[in-house]
């Protein structure tokens, strides 16, 4: 079967232009729905990143002074080991803290450059036996007064709230995106159907003279895939935009909770690839359905 590339490209282009308004509608719907999908994936990543220090049941962190002595650190460690209210804990020295810091701020090198390991506080990440607010408060009051301790930060409710909220927003975005994706698929299906209707006489002649089924189908399939690809290209633009916004927030408020709300380039790439694949899939799906349903060869 000799499939001529120039023929296919020409036909696909003609179809797209002939049906401009419906083509634009399909592309925009793909773009909006995939932007939401990409945005919710990024949000999930960023919340995971922001709360990285708080994963694995860690409920409070004892930050030591950067210049705390060895004895002071060992005293706190001993106390944590002996406390019956502490299930387990982990010590992050200055180098480990710096590594984690670099990880979190890898997209904002100006922040990383302004920091050296020796100004960062080493810390104990503590998992208490009992996660009630009273226990954590009592532990906090014990450790905050110890010599060499800079501060004790408890997760309290803020971290949990952020997690729950982001879960809720994430699920909400996914549901809306799901409906929009369905709408996008149906729009693509319809625009392909219109294209086939506009060219029904040519299709009839092609069938009569014995053009192979795929020769007739492929320009229409390409048209659907093209709509999916352009739509997801827009959505990927939005994904990169969201990353910029997160980075700006992080740069503005370097030590607040939101400072962790960053996504690294790797995660943005993964999200973009995911968005592109989804776009191609719904384009192919919509047009394949239109072709198999309405192009009876």
């Amino acid at each position, binding site marked *: *079967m*000799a*499939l*001529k590339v120039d*023929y296919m490209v020409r036909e696909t282009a003609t179809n797209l232009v002939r049906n401009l308004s419906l083509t634009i509608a399909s592309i925009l719907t793909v773009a909006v729905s995939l932007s939401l999908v990409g945005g919710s994936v990024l949000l999930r990543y960023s919340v995971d990143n922001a709360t990285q220090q708080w994963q694995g049941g860690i409920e409070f962190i004892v930050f030591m002074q950067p210049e705390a002595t060895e004895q002071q650190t060992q005293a706190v460690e001993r106390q944590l080991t002996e406390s019956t209210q502490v299930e387990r804990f982990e010590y992050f020295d200055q180098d480990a803290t710096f590594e984690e810091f670099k990880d979190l701020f890898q997209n904002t090198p100006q922040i990383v450059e302004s920091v050296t390991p020796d100004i960062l506080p080493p810390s104990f990440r503590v998992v208490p036996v009992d996660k009630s607010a009273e226990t954590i408060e009592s532990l906090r009051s014990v450790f905050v007064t110890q010599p060499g301790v800079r501060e004790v930060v408890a997760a309290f409710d803020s971290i949990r709230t952020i997690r729950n909220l982001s879960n809720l927003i994430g699920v909400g975005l996914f549901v809306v995106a799901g409906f929009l994706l369905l709408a996008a698929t149906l729009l693509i299906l319809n625009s392909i159907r219109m294209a086939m209707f506009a060219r029904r*006489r*040519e299709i*009839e*002649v*092609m*069938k*009569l*003279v*014995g*053009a*192979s*089924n795929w*020769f*007739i189908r492929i320009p229409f399939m390409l048209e659907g895939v093209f709509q999916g690809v352009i739509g997801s290209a827009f959505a990927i633009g939005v994904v990169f935009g969201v990353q910029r916004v997160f980075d700006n927030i992080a740069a503005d408020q370097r030590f607040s909770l939101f400072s962790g709300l960053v996504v690294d380039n790797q995660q943005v790439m993964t999200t973009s690839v995911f968005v592109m694949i989804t776009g191609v899939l719904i384009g192919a799906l919509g047009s394949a359905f239109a072709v198999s349903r309405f192009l009876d*060869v």
Partner: protein
Amino acid sequence: MIKLENVTKTYKGDVPALRNADVDIAKGEFVFLVGASGSGKSTFLRLINREERPEVGNIYVAGKNILELSSWKVPYLRRNIGSVFQDFKLLTGKTVYENVAFALEVIGRPKHVVKTQVPAILELVGLGKKMESFPHELSGGEQQRVSIARAFVNRPLILLADEPTGNLDPATSVGIMRLLDRINRTGTTVLMATHDRSIVDTMRRRVIELDRGTIVRDQHRGVYE
């Protein structure tokens, strides 16, 4: 070349369009299908290039049972069967040349074949000087010549013509019949459904008459009735 064995075709909830048809057409024959409107002539033609499938019976084209062809092979069957219609089915946005070239391009014929075959066939049908005209600039007879050129450019074994002179005046029809006769003389089997009494009576070829789906006459060197 074409063989129907006990073929019955019924459209949904209707009387049979074709009933127990047994026909054997040899290579190079010229056959008229006659009968009133709705007698099954078009169905007969549509069965041969597998636009329709019968409920009962077998259909052989060039020795192959076409009902056993998988659907992706049907286009290859149709490359051996040219089709001509009463309404020409030309593409209005394409020139005469492009209409004929289209038939070769969509079956993947290389450019140099298209460039030599299309002018040659248009010369044959007498339209060598109108290659750049659009269908609406041509007379009905000329448009039908284009459609015959398109059907024949790929040198099919069989040519199916469904009332090709139905829209043409008698003088023009004679010209079209000369052309079909000429194509038949190259060895192409021609099967033509028609209402045109004078054409059938003048040509004196094999006549198959249908009446409400049943073959009531199959006569060599026949007349209309």
